[in-house]
């Protein structure tokens, strides 16, 4: 039955690995396109033009225009690019913090309990509150938001890495490696690193969605990026004032674009995890 009829749907002929690769490829491609195209948008492309203010979506202006006649599609694209950049900075920084913390915890048990205490401390404070505090404390702007997100999102990865390193350190092959006269550094480089690198890569990618969402929400609340920057949070908070007058496109499309961007990162991350750590694919 299955073989007698030729399937014309190419997806049904692919195996799980090919599908996973295709999903990763597509989502990464879209993300890269967003970032690259946002880099080509100058601020001169987002000029005010009062002749075309408050226009609903059309083929000329896909996402409509705002009350100053700026093209919302260009602004949204620029904002998404900015979000990804901040997300990248925050994710990489928080991964570095997580790795440093996990390594610190593996030195001795006092540092380990200090690290567990730090994790609990950071987890006990609501994220958004801590991000706002750090962001304001560091003077706001892209730098403040990046730092704020980075310093609140390292905990999950640090926990995972800590558990993994502990498990590997008590394994028989590490003990045997010590018997062969290998140094701690050699063991860390050759035994531990190859086993945790998957977690590091996947962890970093999966911080991205959080970082982008938090950046947007903090900016929306007015504690993040400054109002002249074309960030999604700014766009959304400005659109609030015009929603009542019926300008629905100002909030809908940028919000939807942000949601899709975050989802794409999540899909890419989960699929890369499936690929690098096949045992998790059954979960």
């Amino acid at each position, binding site marked *: 039955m299955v073989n007698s009829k030729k399937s014309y749907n190419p997806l049904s002929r692919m195996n799980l690995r090919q599908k996973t690769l295709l999903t990763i490829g597509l989502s990464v491609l879209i993300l890269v396109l967003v970032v690259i195209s946002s880099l080509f948008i100058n601020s001169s492309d987002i000029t005010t033009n009062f002749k075309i203010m408050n226009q609903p979506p059309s083929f000329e202006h896909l996402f409509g225009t705002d009350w100053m006649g700026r093209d919302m599609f260009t602004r949204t694209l620029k904002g998404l690019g900015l979000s990804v950049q901040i997300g990248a900075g925050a994710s990489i920084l928080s991964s570095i913090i997580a790795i440093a913390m996990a390594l610190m915890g593996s030195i001795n048990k006092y540092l380990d309990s200090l690290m567990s205490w730090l994790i609990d401390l950071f987890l006990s404070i609501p994220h958004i509150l801590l991000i706002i505090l750090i962001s304001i404390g560091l003077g706001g702007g892209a730098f403040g938001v990046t730092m704020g997100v980075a310093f609140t999102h390292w905990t999950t990865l640090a926990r995972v890495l800590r558990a993994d390193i502990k498990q590997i350190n008590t394994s028989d*092959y590490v*003990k*045997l490696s010590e*018997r*062969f*006269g290998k140094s701690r550094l050699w063991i860390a480089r*050759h*035994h531990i690193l*190859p*086993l945790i690198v998957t977690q590091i890569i996947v962890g970093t990618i999966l911080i991205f969605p959080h970082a982008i969402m938090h950046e947007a929400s903090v900016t929306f609340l007015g504690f993040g990026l400054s109002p002249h920057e074309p960030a999604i949070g700014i766009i959304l908070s400005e659109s609030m004032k015009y929603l009542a007058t019926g300008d629905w496109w100002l909030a809908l499309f940028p919000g939807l674009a942000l949601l899709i961007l975050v989802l794409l990162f999540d899909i890419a991350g989960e699929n890369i995890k499936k690929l690098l750590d096949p045992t998790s694919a059954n979960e």
Partner: protein
Amino acid sequence: MELKAENISFKYPSAKEYLLKDVNLELDNNKIMGLIGDSGSGKSTLCKILSGYVTNFEGSVTFDGQPLPKKGFKPVQLIYQHPEKVMNPKWKMKQVLEESWDVTDESLKEFGIQKSWLTRFPQELSGGELQRFSVLRSLNPDTKFLIADEMTTMLDAITQVQILDSVLKTVKERNMGFLLVSHDMDLVDTICDDKIYLKDINKI
């Protein structure tokens, strides 16, 4: 050379009673010794103490009159019962071997290891094949004394003979010490020059 254990007493931190009490043992490279004991009698623990894996015991273990070295390559090596536990799952077999020493082609042949196995991961080999690697790896030129803790228990008779033959040949060639731990009486009778019953030396 001799491996000497004096007045070894040991109990696990959670246990109330001693597992080993005042165990005295002298091993050298002239005779191949067999250590026999029931399950749970402390054979493996004694092996771990002799090879320096367990350090929180009472008494002393000396090798050629010196305490076991803390750093560098350890002259007393232990071969485990389960080879898959002592191999990093993300390493190719070639890397596993090279962690210890640069194995020669003759030794690979001697232990019946095929070249094509070297590029595989531990999961892609059978228990007997893995144990060949595990044994060959511990036969580093610097190894002076080899303790085989139920090395061949999980293997079939033919593989047992093949591996033990190769090990004994190398041990005699290099004039190494060898302690075979087992509860298979026939195996110990066949291979070893002399045998020790753990319950005779354990004053519990």
